[in-house]
């Protein structure tokens, strides 16, 4: 059943059958999206030495293997470091840029906004190759700072976007009230605008952390021996040994991400960022 059929059916006065079809359709999509999870998690607890599904026995051996392998811990450390620092930098630059873009009307404003957003739609492979070519003469290739810059390029649009969304909600009169009360631009931003942008900043941080931690394509061009992020290290590992260690790592990441999303959802309502 196609989506357009299901949607048009739902307009009928007694759309019960159409609505049922739509629900089924949505469920199938969700199932499809979640399918890897249903396979990965059981695999992580498999006692088999290979990635065979369904697993033949239960064990924690792949979690033990994960912890025992230095490269995974090191890579996880680098990934976490990159994600956190890139997120903080992107949030600072993103929130300030949002204020500039929303509150001040200057020529080239729309163009600038588009330029900021391009990493969202630009093919990552092109971006990665381009950055590698640019960083190479600057000595930023296979270098932490180069990696950080690259991660900022991809996380910044998310921070900017969520900042823009909440900033539109902040009444300009509040900032003007702060001005008349003696607060200059910076103090107004610090004491009025920024606190009111908190929901957007938290949402931006969530996206940014996940995007950075997950980043593969661009990182591949810039990373190197001794400078491997977790996704790269996992990919490397699968080239030589296809055992459930990867599933174990994925499961841990899944749990951490779920907890983070639940916390953020409780704090600010992540769903609002998409409406």
């Amino acid at each position, binding site marked *: 059943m196609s989506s357009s059929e299901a949607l048009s059916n739902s307009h009928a006065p007694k759309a019960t059958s159409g609505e049922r079809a739509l629900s089924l359709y949505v469920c199938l999509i969700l199932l499809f999206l979640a399918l890897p999870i249903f396979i990965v998690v059981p695999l992580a607890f498999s006692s088999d030495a290979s990635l065979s599904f369904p697993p033949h026995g239960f064990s924690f051996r792949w979690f033990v293997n994960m912890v025992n392998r230095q490269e995974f811990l090191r890579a996880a450390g680098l990934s976490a470091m990159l994600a956190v620092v890139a997120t903080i930098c992107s949030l600072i630059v993103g929130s300030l840029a949002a204020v500039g873009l929303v509150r001040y009307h200057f020529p080239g404003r729309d163009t600038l906004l588009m330029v900021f957003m391009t990493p969202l739609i630009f093919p990552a492979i092109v971006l990665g190759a381009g950055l590698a070519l640019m960083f190479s003469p600057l000595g930023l290739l296979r270098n932490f700072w180069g990696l950080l810059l690259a991660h900022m390029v991809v996380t910044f649009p998310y921070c900017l976007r969520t900042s823009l969304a909440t900033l539109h909600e902040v*009444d300009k009169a509040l900032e003007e009230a702060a001005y008349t*009360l*003696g607060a200059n631009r910076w*103090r107004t931003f610090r004491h009025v605008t920024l606190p009111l942008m908190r929901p957007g900043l938290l949402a931006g941080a969530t996206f940014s952390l996940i995007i950075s931690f997950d980043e593969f394509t661009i990182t591949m061009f810039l990373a190197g021996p001794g400078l491997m992020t977790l996704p790269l290290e996992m990919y490397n590992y699968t080239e030589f040994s296809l055992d459930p260690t990867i599933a174990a790592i994925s499961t841990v990441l899944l749990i951490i991400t779920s907890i983070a999303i639940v916390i953020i959802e409780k704090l600010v309502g992540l769903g609002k960022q998409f409406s």
Partner: protein
Amino acid sequence: MNGSINASASMGGATIGAARVDLDSVKKWYGPVLAVRGVSLSIEPGEMVCFLGPSGCGKTTTLRMIAGLETPDEGEIRIGGEAVNRLPPWKRNVGMVFQNYALFPHMTVAENIAFGLNMRGTSGSEVRAKVEAAMAQVRLADYGDRRPSQLSGGQRQRIALARAIVTRPNVLLLDEPLAALDKKLREQMQVEIKQLQRAVGITTVFVTHDQEEALTLADRIVVMEEGRIVQIGAPSDVYERPKSRFVSDFIGYTNAVSGKVEAITAGRARVSTASGHAFEVPAGEGISAGDRVDLVIRPEKVVVDPANTDGLMVLDGTLVHTVYTGAVTYSHVDIGAGDVLIAMSPNAHGEAATAPGGRLRIGLRPDTMLMFPSRG
């Protein structure tokens, strides 16, 4: 009175911000729109001035230029004699109350009031003392820990007022601060604002498009039309001696008959109307014999069925309809040829007896009529 701000508690002792404010040929463009077309005005220290005018006439824009939230394209603004055109709002020491109060939603009431003091680097204990005094002054002493969202409209209004004056600004600017309140609360707040303004002696500019509010509050009213000042004067001046048909219509009822000037002799013009009446009214400047004019009179100056007709010009007419407002009744009387005059009569002895369609006599003093050139 029960609902009044504690005006006797002065803001910590000293009188505050009685600065003079001057506007000198101030102009402001928004793109191609000339929003303010050369406004010149001097506001005396401690005076309360109301900007009054229809929507879009440039009241808010002018106020925002005084605050520093907009920059004039031409002309000069001086506060306390000092040119402030290039001074950002945070250096002007003005207090402003916004139409929707603009209280900081992420701060408590006390934090809101303390904001301006904190920005000035006032010490912690002094801030606490002043915030408490300000909250007491607007009778919300126990509300310090609340969020603005937990307050009623009138309470928010008071907090916004307290926040604006606690820093002892040179000028207090209010942009339709009562527009969001219901009539009863609005009238009560008018009294409170006036008392507070008197008590602290602060130079105040108040924007409104409510003529009654302007008449009640202002020491002087500045009537604006399409970005220009059309008249400045005390409330009674503006009401009794409007300089133009626009001002007379904007402040009070429109109550006019049109006619033609027959002759002008000894400072009096003889105006004949289509209804066959001849009014002898004071001659105005720039009007000569033969001109088409409108004669305007306030409804309260037209008497219904006068008992004593000494010095009155008596007109016979037909009652078209009546508007009963409780305290007074407005009678619309056709005096012939479709000329309608409105007469106001107090309902001292119950409702008026005449039914619409009935004959009615009205009396007026032609002296109290104002003559303006006919429009169009």
